[in-house]
């Protein structure tokens, strides 16, 4: 069994004054709409079961109202669930006392927010040092320790500015430095880049990927943007109306969408940048041609294979062992935008 850092088991969240008493109806299968009409309660999350692996980026994706921000706030218990369990390293977060929870938040988990959540009356340096100050580190020492993180996110020289003097992208860098400074092993990111311009967003994704390569945090990343999810996520859970409708790695989700809703999502994706060689190869057989790493995306495999003599190549795993072969036709077919179910190719017949 794969290692689990954060286990979410049977999590339900109902918003309303009598949440516990309507729990039975919800377990019995009452829909979100029905719950709202009959009991005037809002179903936030429905039977969520997600395992987050350690030291990788797990993305939770969903459109607005899908419950993704509610879900991430359960992990550090900013929101209390109506039912279910949250286990971090096997320890039940919901069973923690007030003091234990505060310790947990101070040392083991930190968070980055969509609207930055910076303290506008504090300077950049004071904001970055905030988590350490809360831990009880003296202000001077905390600033000293957090300086390296400000440098790391490219904000040296701005220590004495106030957040209102910075652009959105720079403010979120402060948020990131603040979250990293506490050395927590879990980093929760609630749509951290959604408020930023597209160019800045790509920039910040690069910063994050660079940091992750070095730090190997357990990272839970929320987004409504599928491109972002595919770019960052080593595993992705898709949320709709408060329920997880598909979980898997990016390859799985693109190649085997669980339902029409997800199919609609993924059909416009640039597949050549996501699908890897191993997903379209013919396993087992070995052919005459160059060798490609198994996780090479098709976009990069294409020129190599088309330049090869027989338009084919071997696919090798991380240890250099051949695990299969790939032909030009397979690559092209993999890149092609999938047809709507029903009209398979009919338009061009």
């Amino acid at each position: 069994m794969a290692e689990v850092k954060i286990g979410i088991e049977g999590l339900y969240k109902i918003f309303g004054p009598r949440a516990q008493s309507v729990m039975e109806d919800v377990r019995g299968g009452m829909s979100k709409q029905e719950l709202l009409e009959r009991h005037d309660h809002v179903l936030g999350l429905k039977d969520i079961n997600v395992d987050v692996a350690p030291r990788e980026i797990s993305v939770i994706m969903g459109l607005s109202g899908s419950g993704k921000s509610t879900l991430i706030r359960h992990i550090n218990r900013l929101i209390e669930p109506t039912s279910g369990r949250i286990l971090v390293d096997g320890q039940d977060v919901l069973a923690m006392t007030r003091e234990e929870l505060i310790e947990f938040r101070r040392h083991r988990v930190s968070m980055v927010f969509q609207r930055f959540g910076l303290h506008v009356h504090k300077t950049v340096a004071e904001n970055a040092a905030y988590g350490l100050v809360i831990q009880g580190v003296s202000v001077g020492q905390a600033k000293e320790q957090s300086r390296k993180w400000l440098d790391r996110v490219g904000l040296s020289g701005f220590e004495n500015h106030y957040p209102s003097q910075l652009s959105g992208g720079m403010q979120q860098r402060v948020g990131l430095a603040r979250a990293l400074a506490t050395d927590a092993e879990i980093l929760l990111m609630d749509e951290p880049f959604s408020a930023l311009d597209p160019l800045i967003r790509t920039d910040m994704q690069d910063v994050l990927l660079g940091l992750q390569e070095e730090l190997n945090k357990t990272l839970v990343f929320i987004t409504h943007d599928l491109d972002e999810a595919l770019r960052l996520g080593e595993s992705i859970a898709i949320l709709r109306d408060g329920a997880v409708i598909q979980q898997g790695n990016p390859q799985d989700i693109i190649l085997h969408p669980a339902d029409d809703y997800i199919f609609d999502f993924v059909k416009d994706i640039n597949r050549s940048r996501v699908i890897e060689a191993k997903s379209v190869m013919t396993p087992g057989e070995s052919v005459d041609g160059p060798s490609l790493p198994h996780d090479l995306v098709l976009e990069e495999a294409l020129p190599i294979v088309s330049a090869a003599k027989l338009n084919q190549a071997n696919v090798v795993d991380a240890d250099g062992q051949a695990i299969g072969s790939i032909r030009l036709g397979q690559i092209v077919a993999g890149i092609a935008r999938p047809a709507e179910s029903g009209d398979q190719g009919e338009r061009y017949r």
Partner: protein
Amino acid sequence: MDFLTEFPSMDRQELRDLKKAIDGGFRDFSREFGEAIENFFEPLLWFLVWFEKLLQAAPWPVIILALAALAWLGSRSKTVVAGCALSFLAIGYFGMWHDTMSTLAIISVATLLCITVGIPLGILMARSDRTQTAITPALDIMQTIPAFVYLIPVVMLLGIGKVPGLIAVCIYAIPPIVRLTNLGIRLVEKEALEAADAFGADYRQKLFGVQIPLALPNIFAGVNQTIMMALSMVVIASMIGVAGLGVPVLRSVSNQYLALGLMNGLAIVALAIIFDRVSQRFGERLQRHRRGIEHG
């Protein structure tokens, strides 16, 4: 049809008995506890008298310099400092120095008292909706009930003098600081608080590190309002024996001395404007981080 033309009121005799019972009850209460309550306020009286004597005994140039220095510390504005010094010179020149010092003393002590009681009360109010619903009507009563009405029990309890005057001033002047502290804390952005929660801040760390600093503009508006309202109570307070600028105003009302009334009234206005400008500028200066918001 007597029922419709005559309001079905309480029997006269019963009403008289009820009023008598209330009066008697309160009189007994003041006889019983009046002295204890007076003793309780003894340190306050001592401080007030000491402060008033200090202001009156100090040489006037020292006082003016000290006030100008305070105005500078608060406002960092030469205009405000010059206005402050000139006003006090004029007040002295027109023979109102002594009374102004008395008024200054009681206003300062009343404001300090209001701040030390009002800000914690406001914080308490912001902590839960239940305390807010409990305290709000009390504040409404304190602000709207005619001052003369609460002068009666205060005088019955403590007699005539500085302490009952101080209490009357505070009853009238404390609501704004309580209200605006509560409002300021409640208006603090949810995101800022949520971030504090996420990093494991406890109640004290949230209160002193996030809520109060971000509520300061409103808290300062409250302090400013409290000072203004305290000043406006000076004349009424003089009716129950508080020395100061209110006494000559009261005298000029009963004797139709226009000039006397006008001069002392204007002295109160001058004090009000100085207090207002200094405290407002100080509040603005605390908001350094709001500068540079134009950055895109």
